[in-house]
């Protein structure tokens, strides 16, 4: 049992595939294996499955099915939104924030390196972008605003309705990375022009996602080939994945109120209990947060060591700190929030899923004080000193 992860609290990284999702997918690997572009009955069967899934997702988002473009995941969806907009011309201005996921951040960096102008919006101490800053940043040559719906490290929810309304007013397309927010919070689709989603964050399979693209939004495709997805994304459809994404979406939306209420309860309890430990802090907004993410810092402790120690207790969590990435810098999100450096290295992200039970939370709360003390005992920095 030593290798067995009993307690999984890293659902922002990925989630287990829901049994209903897996069950719905299996036939499309075996008996219903057709290529959705083929003319024969196997092909038509696969096409029907893809379009049913598309319709199901569109129905839950209250958008038109033709506005859903299936991709290999959210990284591709984010790249398609940013690069697909930018590459329509040879220059222009992009507005995004300092706390975006790397898929947006590094796409923006790449565009900057190719001569595009990029404005990075600052955030407040909770990690929130100000809608007023968006208004001030928009210029005549602004081609896109991209601000995530809910942050993947600290959970803070962005004022995307206000940002979307400003973009609408100024006729600038608005993209939001909703990977963590999809199926968790209400999304103001009426002011969103593009939205990225990944299946594996909501108990669907890895390797599939979509970009919602409002009708009339102009994009140049990044993948060229057989003209799939109305020419917006070539490549044979991942039929089992798309079916799984549809079912995962249905479960997430149908169960949403019940599951997120339970998650909120876990989050509140976690915050209350973890902050009882000395020299700890909550990163992100105490209430304006996604229900499933809580991020803490522990003074005088480095995050990776904390994760590894919890792993010894068979508890899976994560950190956004330096050693989890191939460079030395503390998490760009925590730095943007102004978290003191003595704290920014010692972050712990706890994220729950639909399968999380009170026992999981209790196990973490039991192990955490032991592990924190153990690491503080070997640290040269003394807490409160």
């Amino acid at each position, binding site marked *: 049992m030593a290798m067995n992860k009993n307690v999984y609290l890293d659902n922002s990284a990925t989630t287990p595939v829901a049994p209903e999702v897996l069950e719905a997918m299996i036939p499309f690997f075996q008996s219903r294996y057709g290529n959705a572009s083929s003319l024969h009955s196997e092909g038509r069967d696969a096409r029907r499955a893809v379009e049913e899934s598309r319709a199901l997702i569109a129905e839950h988002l209250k958008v038109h099915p033709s506005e859903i473009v299936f991709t290999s995941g959210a990284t591709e969806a984010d790249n398609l939104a940013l690069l697909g907009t930018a590459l329509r011309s040879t220059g222009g201005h992009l507005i995004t924030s300092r706390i975006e996921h790397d898929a947006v951040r590094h796409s923006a960096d790449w565009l900057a390196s190719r001569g595009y102008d990029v404005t990075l919006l600052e955030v407040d101490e909770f990690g929130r972008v100000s809608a007023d800053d968006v208004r001030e940043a928009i210029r005549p040559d602004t081609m896109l605003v991209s601000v995530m719906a809910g942050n993947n490290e600290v959970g803070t929810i962005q004022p995307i309705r206000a940002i979307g309304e400003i973009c609408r007013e100024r006729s600038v397309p608005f993209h939001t990375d909703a990977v963590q927010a999809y199926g968790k919070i209400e999304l103001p689709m009426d002011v969103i022009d593009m939205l990225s989603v990944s299946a594996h964050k909501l108990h669907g399979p890895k390797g599939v996602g979509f970009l919602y693209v409002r009708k009339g939004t102009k994009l140049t495709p990044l993948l060229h080939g057989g003209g799939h997805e109305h020419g917006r994304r070539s490549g044979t459809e991942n039929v089992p994945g798309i079916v799984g994404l549809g079912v995962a979406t249905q479960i997430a939306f149908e169960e949403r109120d019940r599951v997120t209420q339970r998650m909120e309860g876990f989050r509140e309890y976690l915050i209350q209990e973890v902050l009882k430990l000395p020299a700890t802090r909550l990163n992100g907004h105490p209430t304006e947060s996604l229900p499933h993410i809580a991020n803490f810092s522990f003074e005088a402790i480095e*995050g990776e060591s904390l994760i*590894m120690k919890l792993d010894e207790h068979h508890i899976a969590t994560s950190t956004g700190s330096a050693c989890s990435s191939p460079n030395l810098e503390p998490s760009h999100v925590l730095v943007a929030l102004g978290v*003191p450096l003595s704290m920014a290295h010692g972050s712990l992200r706890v994220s729950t899923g639909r399968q999380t039970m009170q026992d999981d939370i209790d196990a973490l709360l039991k192990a955490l004080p032991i592990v924190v003390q153990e690491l503080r005992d070997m640290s*040269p920095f003394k807490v409160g000193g």
Partner: protein
Amino acid sequence: MYTEKVIDHFREPHNRGKMENYSAVGKVGNIVCGDVMWLYIKVDKNDAGQDIITDISWETFGCTAAIATSSMVSDIGKGKTIEEAIAVTNQDVASELGGLPPIKMHCSALAADALNEAIYAYLIQEKRSIPEALQKRHDHIAKEMAQLEERYAAFTEKGNSKPRGCE
């Protein structure tokens, strides 16, 4: 990504904690980049009149690799003469652990540097002459620390906190 030996030393590190009545301490690293080691040595003379490192302990703030290398260097250095201990490199420590992931070599393999700095501090304090190789390495370590602080100055301002341990 880590070898079993690294994990073993991380799980049950040897010689951790501050030492009472230490002869000297070596402090390396920078909280801004995330790894700080303080390494304590106790020096005594053996029957032949040579300086022997009879005890080593450490306090480390850092990742798995940083803690494992601290533990390993304390094992390696203990019982060595000053001359032998000066020759220990970060590469030696990493090799004894069965290797470290490449990205960890730069930021976490500070352990031998800490030992080097402790010996340097000891010799200065005892007003002994400093071997050329030790002086060179000390200068190199000091230069690297200064570069790190410069490189991360922006973070320091942004984070609005003085990187402790750099003093």
